[in-house]
Structure formats: C-alpha cells, structure tokens
C-alpha cells in the first residue's frame, strides 16, 4: 500500500525459519560485541571509569534497584504518565485522522498542516507545557500525548485514504450500509497502516515523557537519571538507563508482535 505512510519501512519482511535464526544470532552478536567493547574501554581505562562505569558494576546496581524495589516509585510515576498519555494520543490521533480522512477536501487541506506540525521539533512547546501545567506529571502527559498524536493521526489519514476504490465499489454494488462499509472494508483495509502509526506514536510518547522528566521534574525514571548524573553517581545513572532501554525494547517488541499478528496469515 502507500509507502508514504510514516514508518512503513523497517519491516523485516518474511524470512525463512533459518533466516529468522540467523537474524536473531546476528542481533545477539551485535549486542555482545557492544558489551565487550564497553567492557574493554572501561577495563583499559581508555574512557575514564568516572564517566563510564564497567558493565559488571552497572549490572550489579541494576539488579539491586530491581530486587530492593528502589526503582518502583519512579517507575510508578513514569508508568502512570505513559498510561495516561499513550491512550490519549491513540484515541485523539485515530479520531482526528478518521474525521480528516472522511472527505477529500479535508484530507487535501489538513494533511499537509498536520505533516508540517509533525516536522516542527515539538520539544520547543515543552516550556509552555511546564508553565501551564507545572513540573508534575500533567506536563509530561500533555507533552507525551502531543508527541504521540502526530504519527498516529497521519497514518490514520493515510490508512483510510489509501483504501482501494475497487473494494468500495464492490461493497456499494452489493448494497453495503455505511456501518458495514466501515466494519468490513475500511477498518480492515486501514488497520495495518494505523497500527504502524500507533507503534511509532507510543514509542515517541514514551520518549517524550522520559525526555520531559529529565528537563524538569521531581520524580520519574528520566528525573532519576539526571539526578544521579548531577550527583556524579554514574553507576546508578547507568543502571536506570539500562532499565529505560529495557522498557523501550520490550514495548517495541510487543507492539511489533501485535502488528504482525494483525497482518495475519
């Protein structure tokens, strides 16, 4: 379908069983190589251990913040913000996208507007968000939802707008009602593109929340990373960074699986 939709690339495509194994092993090899490199530069002190602690030490602290539950209060705050902002972005993005895609006129007029807004570095609005909503979770929720909104909205417009006219003619000739058209033709045809937008939107939303927390906040994972950095506790900081990377990775994998399942046989 329309290759212009946001984030349509990056689909691994269909690999054979053997191909999937090789691909997994390659990814693992890249990861192990990076870890070894990290270990090597710290042990040889090419990079000062003050800035970059050894992976072993980071792993120990990582395990400690996990097992003692020290990570929980910050994780709770970030999770709460994401649980608010994510669905907000998905619902408003899909709704706005659907409404815009309903007529050719609104698509032609409004899609470029949304696209240009998406191209603006949205971070510049964050100070306004803080002034209006304070440095608590509210400003992160607003910021995260705003980041997530655009790819979801754009892909929804693309998804509904890209439905092949022949399906609509077939449905009309057979006497489909408006509701049947939506349920049987428009939604299934648009779903893959929309889901791709949702995946991208949720990732951006999470990114924006963590970013917001690092700039101005009193709690949350992003705040904790900066807090440790300011306190020169690099091992602790890296332990939290590993934690955030882990969450983002798990999230990406889950959303990709959802997309693949939807794509079906």
């Amino acid at each position, binding site marked *: 379908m329309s290759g212009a939709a946001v984030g349509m690339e990056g689909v691994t495509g269909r690999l054979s069983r053997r191909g999937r194994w090789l691909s997994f092993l390659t990814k693992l090899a890249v990861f192990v190589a990076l870890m070894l490199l990290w270990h090597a530069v710290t042990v040889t002190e090419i990079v000062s251990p003050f800035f970059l602690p050894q992976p072993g030490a980071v792993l120990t602290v990582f395990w400690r913040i996990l097992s003692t539950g020290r990570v929980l209060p910050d994780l709770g705050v970030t999770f709460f913000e994401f649980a608010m902002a994510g669905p907000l972005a998905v619902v408003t993005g899909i709704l706005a996208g659907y409404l815009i895609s309903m007529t050719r006129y609104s698509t032609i007029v409004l899609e470029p507007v949304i696209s240009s807004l998406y191209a603006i570095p949205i971070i510049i609005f964050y100070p306004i968000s803080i002034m209006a909503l304070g440095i608590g979770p509210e400003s992160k929720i607003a910021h995260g939802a705003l980041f997530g909104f655009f790819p979801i909205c754009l892909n929804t417009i693309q998804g509904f707008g890209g439905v*092949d006219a*022949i*399906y609509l*003619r*077939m*449905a*009309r*000739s*057979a*006497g*489909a*009602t408006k509701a*049947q058209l939506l349920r*049987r*033709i428009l939604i*299934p*045809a648009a779903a893959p593109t929309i889901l791709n937008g949702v995946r991208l939107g949720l990732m951006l939303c999470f990114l924006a929340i963590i970013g917001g927390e690092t700039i101005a906040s009193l709690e949350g994972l992003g705040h904790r990373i900066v807090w440790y950095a300011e306190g020169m506790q690099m091992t602790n900081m890296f332990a939290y960074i590993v934690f955030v990377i882990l969450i983002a990775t798990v999230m990406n994998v889950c959303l990709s699986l959802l997309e693949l399942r939807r794509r*079906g*046989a």
Partner: protein
Amino acid sequence: MKSPVGNPSERLVGVENVSHCFPAPEGGKDVLALDAVNMEIMRGEMVAFIGPSGCGKSTLLNVIGGMISPTSGAALVNGQAVSGPLPKQIAYIFQESALLPWATVLDNIKVGLEFQGVPKEDREGIAAAALKSVGLEAFAASYPHQLSGGMKQRVALARALSLRTDILLMDEPFAALDEQTRMIFGEDLSRLLASERKTIVLVTHSLAEAVLLCDRIFVFTSRPGRIKAVLMIDEPHPRTPSFMTSQRFSDLRNELYELLRDEVLAAIGNDRQGLS
C-alpha cells in the same frame, strides 16, 4: 431477434437515450462519454460491450448498475428507472483486485451476502455451495494471495453467483489474466452461465471473449460513445472448445475486428489531438 437461451419476449434491461458527460479534469471542456444511446437486453441474454478505450462502455455498464447517474436519459431494469445500486437484482464482477486480501476465500463470498442482507445463518451454506459450483471448495480457508489469477476470478464469479441476482455485470473480468487462463476461464464461464440462465452484460477489450460468450455484441464508436453496430452470435450455449477453433468463430471475430478497426484508429487520433 432470437437469442439461443433468452426469452425474446421479455425485456429485462432498457437503455433510453442515455448521455453522460464527465466534468473536465482542469478547466477545459467537459468530456461527452456517451451520446444518446438506446438498447434493449432480453432476459437470459448475454451481451458484450466492445469498443476502443474511452468509448464509454464501462460508463454505460455503471449506468445500468446504478453506480453512475447519467447526465440525461435513463436505464431501466424490470421496467423501473435505475436510481442507485440494485443489490437484489444486479451483481458485479470486477477486475482481479476486488477480492478482500485480509479475508479468506469463503469470507470473501460471505461478505457479499452480508451486504446484500442475507440472514447470518444462511450465509455459510450459500457461500459454500457457490464455491463448489466453481470447483474451489478445497480453497475455502485460503487467502486470495495464495490463489492464481484465474482462481481469484472464479472466486469473484462465485461471489457474484451466490447473490442470486437476475443480472450479472462484468467489467473486464479477464483483464488481469494471461491469454491461456482467459480462454479456459471463458469456457468455465460459458458452461456455468448456460446453467444459470442469467442476463449478462460483459465489458471487454477482447474480441475472442465477446464472440465466445455472447449472443449479441454491441460495437461502440470512439468517444462520444454511440452504438455503431450489433453483431449476432447465433450459437447454442454452452460454447465448446470446438466452436472456439471453428472457421465460423474466426469469421465472426474478423467481422468484429473490421467493425472496430476504424473506431480504434479514430480513438487513437483523438488522443493524439489531446496531446498536441
């Protein structure tokens, strides 16, 4: 005029003075696609519309199907003026891409029945029977991308047949098939339709298909479309491979080509003028 399988006394489709104008794409003059076309199609008759590209044959098909309202004149089905799609009386077969790629073969047939308003409990049985009639019952759970082009068109045919309409409109149903698959599909179609006694309108670019399948062939002029000639094919249905290889078949095909040749040249001339 006598048609081999139709009942010549009953007019099922009428086209009365149909003209249709398409608005010009950018500024320029509107395009007159059809110019005061009249015709009658009898119940059980198979007719083909053939003519150069842009002659308005698909437009006329869509006027009969209620998908386009003509600028003037009217199409009549069963004596009633057509004002929109008639799902209980008219089924369509489009080009290959009209199968929903996300639905199984069986679901593709069931969805047509759902749109038509057939109760849920009846759909499965009707769809399965239709699929069996085209010999694809083993592929009920397959997806369209797993089928060949010819198989896909047989599924589209099954979907159209399952709707149990009197009239079947076919808009270049062979366009995406290769030559050999076309001819075999043509034979299948002839056999199936002979037993169904449906009224068929086939829009096609292929002379052989028109001769193979139809009782009458309407030859269109280049734009604006008018009926230039009507060619009768007086040959019983179902048409067999031996008809396709007979001298009579090639004579009819040649006759059709002679009627068409000038119009195709005129259409190419029109396009050239459009370019300059």
